[in-house]
Structure formats: C-alpha cells, structure tokens
C-alpha cells in the first residue's frame, strides 16, 4: 500500500523537467523501483503550460501537490505602511481637520513620529504643512480648535509604539 502510493511521484520525476529534483530527493522518494514497467500513472496527468505547473496528481488516499520552481514565497508578510501612505492621502495646509488630528489637545504641539506612527517623509510633510497653515492664518497656534476635539483618534498618545523617535 505504501509502496504503491509512492509510485506516481517517480513518474512525475521522470516525465517533467520543471520539478525541482532536489526537493524530491530530500523527501526520500528516490528508493522507488527502477525497472521501467513499474512506472505507471495512477491519477490524472499533469497539465503544464510554459514552465508553470497547473494541475495536481491524486494518488491512493491523499493528494500530492507538485512543487513549483521560480514561484514567489506565498508566506511572505505584507509590507508595513503608515496610515497616510496606505490610503494615499494628500496632506495639504488647507485641510486643517486632518492636520489637527496630529496636534495635542492638551498642549497644542505636534506629536512626534514615535506616537503618530508615520514614516519619516510623511512626518516631515505633516510638520511643514501645520506650520504653513498656522502662518497663513488657517489654524490656531496655541491650542487645537475645540470643534475638532471629538474627531476619531488615529493613535494613543499615552501608549506610544516606540519609546522615542530615534
């Protein structure tokens, strides 16, 4: 029974060149019968198109998935992005509602990047645009505007993600 279940793998090994040979040997499938008449397919044949393996072989009890060469790592984690880059938000000095989300309601000062969780470029941009808005007469300098106090909070200033911005 066990011997039978191993046979189709050797079939694949012989027929198709696009399978990585090392992986098969590493899995200790090389000890299968060598005489040619022993090779016979049990399941469906593999359908291949231009160096890419599409189908799979069903053998006995289980299903054998075929290893694919030159494939992207499917377990790779997604890249971390800051909120502004993630949603593609354009920071502008006229949009004071967005800018005042990065200002403390207690002191009226701009939060640093270890609290806001922005990347270096975006933090610099936010800082510049806030100063611009204050100088142009769009935004108060000493306090945050009271009508923006109940806006949703993007971060918790009392539990920063990093101990310091460096």
């Amino acid at each position, binding site marked *: 029974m066990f011997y039978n279940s191993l046979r189709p793998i050797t079939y694949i090994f012989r027929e198709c060149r696009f399978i990585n040979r090392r992986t098969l040997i590493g899995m200790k499938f090389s000890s299968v019968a060598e005489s040619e008449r022993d090779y016979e397919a049990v399941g469906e044949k593999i359908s291949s198109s231009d160096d890419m393996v599409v189908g799979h072989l069903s053998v006995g009890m289980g299903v054998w998935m075929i290893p694919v060469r030159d494939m992207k790592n499917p377990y790779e984690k997604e*890249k*971390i*992005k*800051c909120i502004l*880059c*993630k949603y*593609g938000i*354009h*920071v502008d*000095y*006229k949009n004071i509602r967005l800018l005042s989300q990065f200002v403390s309601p207690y002191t009226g000062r701009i939060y640093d990047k270890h609290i806001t*969780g*922005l*990347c*270096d*470029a*975006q933090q610099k*941009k936010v800082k510049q645009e806030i100063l*611009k808005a*204050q*100088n*142009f*007469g*769009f*935004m*108060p*300098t*000493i306090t945050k*505007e009271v009508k923006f106090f109940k806006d949703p909070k993007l971060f918790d200033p009392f539990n920063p993600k*990093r101990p310091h911005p460096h």
Partner: protein
Amino acid sequence: MPSYELAVILRKMSRPELVTTLKRTGQAIFEKGGIIRKIENLGTRELPYRMRVHNHSHTEGSYFLFKFDAPTNTLTNLHDSFLRDIDILRPSISKVEPVNFPEECTLEEELQPPAYRKSVEVLLKQDRKKIFKKGYKNLSNEYI
C-alpha cells in the same frame, strides 16, 4: 512659469465690496504677466487667532484661493502690493506641490533595529575622530 497658490484672507465686507477687492487682486496678478487658473471661495469664518492689520484688530475674515501661474521674479513685488492693500488681512503665496508625494513608504525599514537601518550605516561610515575632536573643542571653550 511655475504654478502657485495665493491663499488670501479678506476682512469682513459686504458682497459688492468683496467683488471689487477680488477684482483688484486678480488685476494685480495680470499686471505682473501672470495667468489665473482658478478662483475658489473657502468661506467666511472666525479667525483662528486675532489679527492686527493696518491698526485694526480683526476676529472674522473671508478666505479665498487663487491658483495662478506667474514668472518667478515678480512674486516679491506681487506680495508687497498685497500687503499694502487695506482690505487684505493676510496674503500668502505658496508653491503647488505634487499630489502623490512619497513613492514608497519606508516605515518597515525604520522600525528595524538600528544596525539594519541605512541612516545608521551612513553615520558609521563617517570619520569618528573628526567628530569627537570638534565636540571636545566646543566643550573646552564653554566650560572653562
């Protein structure tokens, strides 16, 4: 001719007076050889802080936005002419910046420990002796 933005705050006025001042500001741009692309009304509202202009303190103002193209060497003259206008509280000209600003977010690299960051690599390559020499000299001057 690069494109600029003029965010102007006018004092609280009646509607016909507003129209004449807006025409005057537009005319000033045309006289300097500029082109106006767009005029936007950002509304009248309470100022974020009290402004004292031309010996009068103001608490309310109406915001307008001019998008225009003008030659670079005329900007200082243009700004100066706006400052002399009595109806204008604050004229501010700024460059129009690209919309999609950073091409790639570098947050993942910044969150790594310092040994793996590029910015720290640059610091390590600098000549350490020179940095320390400078530091010691400054300290000796200050504290003796």
